[in-house]
């Protein structure tokens, strides 16, 4: 007895359930099959590469691969390469580690007819090029399935290619900048040491020369992005941060050039590279975030079916979704996803609507009920009449909305951005004034360069104004404080995707919460359990019946029972699932005595002529053997312990707390009053939620929204800052700006606290850098700043800002 590891997937199971195969153990037929296939193909070094990691057991996929060879599939996904081969982009499901990539690539390369297969680890996307005369796409898909993975096609959009390209472009620019900064730093050490110990002019020139060679590509290649940004800003009559960075860097560069070619003083090539490098790294991180958003969109799109089976005059045929008209009759089998909205004309069954409503309990639908795309048909054959075209169907409109909102995410303005505008103009004006005054009036208060002409002298002083005012500290003020704030937040289990959200979080005045999964735990829990007959044999039957169902209610009761009793499974006969009501079954014991077992809600009991009175607001599950009820259960969704605390804290800090839910009014009001929320909206659909958020934003509110389901994703994408629970759907996490890794609302409370604190320090930093400029600029204008002071004060201002930001950490 005991637990044994499966030899393929390395998951641990009880020894009893394992399939024995000589010395080997497998958890399922699938694992066994893949193991032997790899062994016979000489690919078993896969297991060495896998090490102790686990993978998921092979998926049991039944759907037809023939559709991969159809014309409509080819038109949508397959491209022709220049060499007359076919090319497709796939997303491979089931990849966990580098060994999985290795196996897939190896198997594909070894297949005759496949020219190249390249799989990306980060997003599981694969690009496959094959020769259509030698192998069909369906065979390739089967090959991938045979080793335990599955593949979906996706449309590699132009946006995707662009994202890859711009990521690569930024990456190279950033690496050039980092490379140069590191080398310049080494030269600077020599230069500054020379400052104190004395240095020959000749060697100083060499160092300047080296710095010049390193700084030039950084300014003109890596910094090109800032020139471009500044140009577009100017075109729209905005002086942005890009303009400040690029103009500051360029002027410092020109000044340094002047020093290099004969001028007296210090060059500042090192500052030029530093500014560009720091700001560029920040921009690169932003590009990365955008790229992963595109990846996730591709993932949901790939799960939307392309075709549906329609029935016309009794004949079934498959049509592409775009060609299906309102009024057509569509047939869906169990497990299939509804891909187009309609009304049921025959059949009945339960539907999983969690992708739209967030509620995990399946909803029972019968004739004339409306079906929404995106929901999943759990268990029966259904025919329905199409009421909306594919474009107007629910699922497609959600995807379209998401695409729109991703590209028009509200831009939060940096505080520094507002300041930089005025700052840039005043510095440039001041420097020009300085030059003019020095040149025309010949005021000479300070240092004297031998032989320098009046023009030269004025020029040096004017440039030193700009160098002193170099936006180093100003540009660092916000990012460095945010960075430290973010790392503090990360320690509390809060993942901020970008630094700027800290600022918005601190400024927020409205907090919108989703109900299911956010305020509540999102799972039904047994609240009350009454067992009238504690005979263990009868409880075994209850356990066996519950085990036969995947319904959340059954699962939850099963867990609760196992906590209290030691139960074993019995073989039930003729187990029948009664839609949305429960289950019935028969059991014959050793004495051949027959038991009728019924488990389900009150309605099912009534149908089976079992009379039992029970009154409850919660969901009820009754269990009867031979018409006698022996156990009752009441289930309800639990409110998270810290929900009340969060709401109270938010209200004390002047935030409006609003709850949005797709659930009905009575449940909503009960939950709202329990946690102390005054405003709530019930019966609201995903698009309604988004509209509500937009309305709030139009009123000028800064909205933080927290949610967990796909049904919240559009609303999340349209809020100023969106928070996703860590156990949310992939898409929800990807559209959110903040992820609560531990799902605890206490962390959300912390998020507000730390953000406010961080924001306070951002303001302090800005004050420090501006105050510093206020003091030094007049000195520079007066020509009183000797090069040593300029060099020191430049680092000093940055150091001050960094040191001040460190204080965010102290005090909890």
């Amino acid at each position: 007895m005991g637990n044994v590891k499966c030899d393929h997937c390395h998951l641990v199971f009880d020894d009893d359930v394992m399939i024995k195969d000589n010395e080997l153990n497998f958890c399922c037929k699938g694992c066994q099959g893949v193991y032997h296939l790899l062994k016979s193909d000489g690919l078993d070094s896969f297991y060495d590469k896998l090490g102790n990691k686990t993978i998921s057991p092979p998926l049991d996929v039944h759907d037809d691969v023939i559709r991969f060879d159809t014309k409509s599939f080819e038109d949508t996904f397959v491209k022709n390469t220049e060499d007359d081969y076919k090319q497709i982009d796939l997303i491979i499901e089931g990849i966990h580690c580098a060994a999985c990539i290795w196996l897939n690539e190896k198997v594909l390369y070894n297949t005759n007819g496949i020219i190249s297969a390249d799989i990306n680890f980060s997003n599981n996307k694969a690009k496959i090029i094959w020769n259509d005369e030698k192998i069909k796409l369906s065979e390739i898909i089967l090959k991938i399935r045979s080793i335990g993975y599955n593949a979906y096609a996706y449309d590699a959009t132009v946006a995707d290619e662009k994202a890859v390209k711009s990521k690569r472009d930024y990456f190279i620019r950033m690496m050039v900048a980092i490379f140069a900064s590191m080398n310049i730093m080494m030269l600077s050490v020599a230069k500054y040491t020379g400052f104190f110990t004395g240095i020959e002019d000749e060697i100083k020139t060499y160092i300047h020369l080296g710095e010049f060679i390193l700084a030039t590509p950084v300014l003109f290649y890596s910094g090109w992005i800032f020139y471009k940004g500044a140009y577009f800003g100017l075109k729209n009559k905005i002086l942005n941060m890009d303009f400040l960075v690029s103009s500051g860097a360029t002027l410092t560069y020109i000044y340094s050039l002047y020093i290099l070619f004969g001028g007296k003083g210090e060059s500042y090539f090192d500052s030029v590279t530093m500014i560009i490098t720091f700001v560029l790294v920040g921009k690169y991180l932003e590009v990365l975030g955008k790229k992963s958003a595109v990846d996730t969109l591709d993932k949901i799109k790939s799960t939307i079916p392309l075709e549906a089976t329609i029935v016309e005059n009794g004949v079934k045929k498959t049509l592409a979704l775009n060609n299906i008209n309102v009024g057509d009759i569509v047939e869906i089998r169990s497990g299939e996803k509804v891909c187009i909205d309609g009304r049921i004309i025959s059949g009945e069954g339960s539907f999983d609507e969690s992708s739209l409503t967030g509620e995990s309990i399946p909803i029972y639908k019968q004739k004339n009920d409306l079906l929404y795309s995106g929901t999943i048909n759990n268990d029966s054959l259904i025919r329905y009449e199409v009421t909306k075209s594919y474009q107007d169907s629910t699922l497609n409109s959600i995807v379209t909305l998401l695409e729109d909102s991703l590209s028009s995410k509200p831009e939060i303005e940096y505080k520094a951005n507002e300041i930089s505008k005025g700052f840039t103009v005043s510095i440039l004006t001041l420097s020009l004034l300085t030059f003019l005054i020095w040149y025309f009036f010949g005021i000479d208060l300070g240092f004297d360069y031998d032989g320098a002409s009046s023009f030269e002298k004025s020029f040096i002083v004017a440039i030193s104004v700009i160098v002193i005012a170099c936006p180093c500290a100003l540009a660092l003020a916000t990012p460095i404080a945010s960075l430290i704030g973010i790392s503090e937040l990360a320690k509390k289990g809060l993942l901020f995707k970008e630094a700027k959200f800290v600022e918005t979080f601190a400024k927020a005045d409205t907090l919108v919460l989703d109900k299911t999964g956010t305020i509540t735990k999102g799972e039904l829990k047994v609240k009350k359990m009454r067992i009238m007959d504690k005979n263990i044999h009868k409880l075994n039957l209850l356990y066996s019946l519950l085990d036969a169902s995947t319904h959340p209610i059954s699962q939850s009761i099963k867990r609760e029972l196992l906590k209290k009793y030691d139960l074993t499974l019995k073989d039930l006969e003729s187990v029948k699932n009664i839609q949305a009501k429960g289950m019935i079954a028969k059991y014959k014991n050793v004495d051949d005595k027959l038991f009728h077992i019924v488990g389900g809600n009150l309605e099912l009991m009534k149908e089976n002529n079992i009379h039992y009175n029970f009154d409850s607001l919660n969901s009820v599950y009754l269990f009867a053997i031979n018409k006698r009820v022996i156990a009752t259960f009441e289930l309800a969704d639990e409110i998270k312990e810290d929900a009340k605390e969060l709401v109270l804290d938010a209200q004390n800090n002047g935030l409006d707390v609003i709850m949005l839910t797709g659930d009905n009014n009575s449940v909503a009001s009960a939950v709202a009053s329990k946690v102390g929320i005054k405003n709530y909206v019930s019966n609201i659909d995903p698009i309604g939620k988004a509209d509500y958020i937009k309305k709030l934003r139009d009123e000028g509110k800064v909205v933080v929204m927290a949610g967990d389901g796909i049904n919240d994703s559009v609303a999340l994408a349209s809020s100023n800052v969106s928070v996703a629970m860590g156990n949310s759907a992939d898409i929800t996490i990807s559209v959110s700006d903040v992820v609560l890794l531990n799902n605890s609302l206490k962390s959300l409370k912390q998020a507000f606290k730390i953000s406010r604190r961080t924001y306070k320090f951002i303001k302090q930093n800005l004050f420090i850098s501006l105050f510093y400029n206020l003091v030094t600029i007049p000195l520079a204008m007066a020509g009183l700043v000797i090069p040593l002071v300029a060099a020191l004060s430049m680092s000093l201002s940055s150091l001050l800002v960094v040191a001040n930001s460190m204080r965010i950490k102290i005090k909890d």
Partner: protein
Amino acid sequence: MINDTLLMMLIVGLIVSFAILGMFIWGAKDGQFDDGDKMMDGLLFDSTDDLNDAVKKEEKIEESKKGQKKSESPE
């Protein structure tokens, strides 16, 4: 004299490091660094078999390109 040596070292150092930077950019433009995770884990697969496989992959792509051209040219 010592100044000349310093200058020479500076120049040689810069040339070497720019050459390495150039190689890095070459690799990056080829898409070698597009997938950060694969790049890091790929280092683990460096046995003789793995390296042979990598060469075979390249050869297969080359071959198929040639084969295609041959079959096209007679027409």
